[in-house]
């Protein structure tokens, strides 16, 4: 039987691929090529941001934990529990790690309103956890309305004394507001950190990658606004400015990126933007909807027989 001759060019290509794989394998063995550690703290919040993260598509969660980072700790998703989980969390402070924090920080009664675990018999409050882990991390990313400015947790009357993550840390905190934060905004920021370091931030520490332009300036209904054609109730396809749309004061890329794996966003579903990604949400974004506006519109009344 004749032995099949492989094309020499193809042979050379196979050799190159093998060399690369061997190099990666060696570097991993030597500890030169390592995935950075990611710690995710769920503080005084609803855990909406970790759920939003699981909805990520490009990249998705599987890619995040297998290729991007070594996901060391998260209250909802890690395999270990109880003391073992807390030990994993405490042990990470000796190594280099990126910290993602969602949820505000309850400060009343020394933070006893929010306990994230028990370690060696002592309760670990959210306040203690963020203070300890926040100062030592290489980067701190505050995700979601609550972590960036207090958000829903700090809404009036704020019985637990909730504050933003930045208020309890003296170092720089990258802020990704949103209720919840879009998975792309977090994964994109994380990817930028892993590849090129800290992304360009605006004056409020939000990455310009995602928070540069007002929704109003990218709204598909902008021409209705400019022409003064306003909707009078939900479900209409014109500009919802008179109903209280907060697109003009919110800086995110919702109109182009959209949600739930790029399917839709509130305005295109005929409901106004409530400004969930702007500082001040929710108290300062109220009313989310109003029918008592600057214009009286007479709708056709059905004649009663």
């Amino acid at each position: 039987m004749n032995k099949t001759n492989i094309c020499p060019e193809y042979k050379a290509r196979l050799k190159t691929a093998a060399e690369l794989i061997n190099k990666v394998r060696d570097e991993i063995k030597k500890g030169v090529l390592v995935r950075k550690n990611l710690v995710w703290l769920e503080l005084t919040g609803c855990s909406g941001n970790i759920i939003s993260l699981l909805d990520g598509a490009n990249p998705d969660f599987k890619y995040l934990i297998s290729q991007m980072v070594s996901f060391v700790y998260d209250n909802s998703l890690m395999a270990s529990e109880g003391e073992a989980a807390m030990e994993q969390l405490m042990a990470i402070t000796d190594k280099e790690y990126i910290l993602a924090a969602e949820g505000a920080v309850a400060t009343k009664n020394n933070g006893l309103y929010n306990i994230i675990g028990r370690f060696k018999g002592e309760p670990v409050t959210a306040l203690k956890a963020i203070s300890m882990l926040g100062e030592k991390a290489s980067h701190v990313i505050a995700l979601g309305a609550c972590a960036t400015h207090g958000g829903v947790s700090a809404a009036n009357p704020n019985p637990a004394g909730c504050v933003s993550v930045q208020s309890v840390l003296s170092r720089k905190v990258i802020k990704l507001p949103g209720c919840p934060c879009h998975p792309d905004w977090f994964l994109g920021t994380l990817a930028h950190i892993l590849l090129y370091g800290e992304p360009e931030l605006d004056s409020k520490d939000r990455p310009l990658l995602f928070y540069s332009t007002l929704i109003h300036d990218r709204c598909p209904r902008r021409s209705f606004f400019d022409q003064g054609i306003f909707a009078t109730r939900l479900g209409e396809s014109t500009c919802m400015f008179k109903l209280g749309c907060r697109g003009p004061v919110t800086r995110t890329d919702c109109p182009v990126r959209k949600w739930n794996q790029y399917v839709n966003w509130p305005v295109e579903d005929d409901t106004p933007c409530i400004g969930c990604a702007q500082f001040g949400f929710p108290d300062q974004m109220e009313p989310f909807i109003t029918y008592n506006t600057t214009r009286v519109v007479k709708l056709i009344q059905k004649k009663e027989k």
Partner: protein
Amino acid sequence: MRECDDEICKRIKRIIAESDNCINLLYATSCICTKNVLLYQLKTMLDEINFLSCLLCKQSEQIQAGYSELPQQNQGEFTIKELAKFNGKDGNPAYVAVNGLVYDVTNNAAWAAASHFGLTAGKDLTGEFASCHAGQAILNKLKITGKLI
């Protein structure tokens, strides 16, 4: 205006014919998908009818965009009490006072629903403005309607 009315009436008649056709199709089809598409089309047609009828009503009442009939003050002078009427509700325009001048924010994008970051219109917001927008060139872009007395 008459021509506009004729156009609108023609359009309304057209939409009625289209929705009639839609309903006939709905009777005929048994496929859920087709039914949903037809229902969505009906919904869009209803929206348009509503929009057109609003136009007609507005024309017949001769209400100008954004403003309703109000008793005239002394040439744009407002007391605090008078200013409170212009809170952007019940068809009233939205006015705010800063540094003694009264500005019209009815159609200002940042004042959707006559509110801005938790503040409502019809008030003197000099203090709030200074604490947030000091040094920013915002006031010179706003329309002045009078002064605060």
